[in-house]
C-alpha cells in the first residue's frame, strides 16, 4: 500500500484480499440459504438475484420473501422489509465519518451507502482509522465489490440448488452467518467497542422481547448511548 499516492491500486487490492476468504465464503453460503428460501417463497431467479443487489440487507430480504409467500399486501411487505433494514441508518451513520473526508463529492457518498453491509462495516471500523483517509474509499470499494459478487453468485446458486439441499445442510448454512459474525464482534478492539458489544449481546434479545419491531434500534440507542457515557466518564478519570 502506497501512503503517498491515493490513486494507487494498493488499497483496492487490499480490500479485495481482505474480503476474499472467510467474509466472501460465509456470505456466499448464507446467500445460498436465501436463494433457496426465495425459490420456495415463489420468487423467480432474477427477482431473487435482483433483491440481493437492490436491497442489500438480508433481514429485509427475508421479511420480504416470507410475507410474499403468505400473499400479504404489497404495502405490508414493503413496510416490514424496510423496518427490518432500519439498522442501516445507525450503521451508515457510524462509518461515514471515515469516508467523508476523501469523498468531497456527495454523489460518491450516496453510492458508497448503497453497498454498506455488516462485512465491509466491520472491516472499515477495524482497519479504517489506521489508514490515511484517501485509502479508505478504494479499500472499501474493493472489499464491498467482492462481497456483492459473492452474494449475487450465492443467491443464484441457492435458487438453482433449492430442493437439492437437505434440510440439515440448509440449516447449517443459515447457522454459518451468526457464528461468523459472533466471532467478528468477539474480535472488536478498544474499550468502548468491546463494552458496546457486550451490552448489545445482553440487550438485543431483551429489547426484542419488549418490541420485535423497535427492539434493534432501542438496543443501539439505550445500550450504545449507555456505553458511550460510561466510556467517556472512564476517559475523564484516567485521561
Amino acid at each position, binding site marked *: 500500500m502506497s501512503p503517498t499516492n491515493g490513486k494507487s491500486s494498493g488499497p483496492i487490492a487490499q480490500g479485495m484480499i481482505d474480503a476474499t476468504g472467510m467474509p466472501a465464503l460465509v456470505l456466499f453460503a448464507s446467500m445460498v440459504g436465501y436463494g433457496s428460501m426465495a425459490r420456495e417463497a415463489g420468487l423467480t431467479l432474477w427477482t431473487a438475484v435482483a433483491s440481493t443487489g437492490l436491497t*442489500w440487507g438480508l433481514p429485509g430480504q427475508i421479511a420480504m420473501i416470507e410475507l410474499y409467500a403468505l400473499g400479504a399486501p404489497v404495502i405490508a411487505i414493503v413496510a416490514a422489509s424496510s423496518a427490518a433494514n432500519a439498522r442501516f441508518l445507525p*450503521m*451508515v451513520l457510524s462509518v461515514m465519518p471515515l469516508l*467523508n473526508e476523501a469523498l468531497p463529492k456527495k454523489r460518491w457518498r450516496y453510492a458508497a451507502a448503497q453497498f454498506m453491509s455488516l462485512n465491509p462495516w466491520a472491516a472499515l471500523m477495524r482497519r479504517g482509522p489506521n489508514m490515511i483517509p484517501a485509502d479508505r474509499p478504494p479499500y472499501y470499494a474493493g472489499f464491498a465489490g467482492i462481497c456483492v459478487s459473492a452474494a449475487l453468485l450465492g443467491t443464484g446458486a441457492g435458487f438453482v440448488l433449492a430442493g437439492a439441499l437437505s434440510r*440439515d445442510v440448509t*440449516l447449517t448454512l443459515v447457522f454459518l452467518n451468526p457464528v461468523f459474525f459472533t*466471532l467478528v464482534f468477539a474480535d472488536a478492539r478498544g474499550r468502548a*467497542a468491546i463494552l458496546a458489544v457486550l451490552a448489545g449481546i445482553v440487550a438485543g434479545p431483551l429489547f426484542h422481547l419488549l418490541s420485535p419491531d423497535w427492539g434493534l434500534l432501542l*438496543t443501539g440507542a439505550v445500550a*450504545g448511548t449507555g456505553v458511550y457515557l460510561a466510556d467517556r466518564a472512564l476517559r475523564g478519570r484516567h485521561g
Partner: protein
Amino acid sequence: MVDGLDWKLWGIVLLCGITTYVWRALAVVIGGRVSPESESFKLFSCIAYAMLAGLISRMVILPEGLLAEAPLSYRLIGIGAAVAVFFGLKRNLAGGVFAGVTVFALLIVFADTPV
C-alpha cells in the same frame, strides 16, 4: 414472462430496495459533517456496535425462520465452541467458524430431535 404476477413481484423487489436505501441516504445526510475525531463519531460507533452485536445475539437466542427449528441448546453449544476455538487458537477466525459449524451440524444430524 410478462404476466401480471411477474410485474407485481418486480415492483415489490424494487420498492423494498428503494425503502431500504432511504435509511442509508438519511445517514449520509445526517453524517455529512461528522469528523472521525469527534465525540459524535464515538457515540455513533458505540450505538452501531451495540445494535449489531444485539442483532447477532438475537439471531442466536430468538431466531426467526429456519434457524428456529434447531433447539436453543444446539445453537448455544455451536456458538460456544466457535468462541472457545477462536480465542484458544489466538483469534483464529476460520478455525472458530469451522468448529462452531461442525459442532452444530453434528448435533442436528446425530442428536435425536425433530429438525
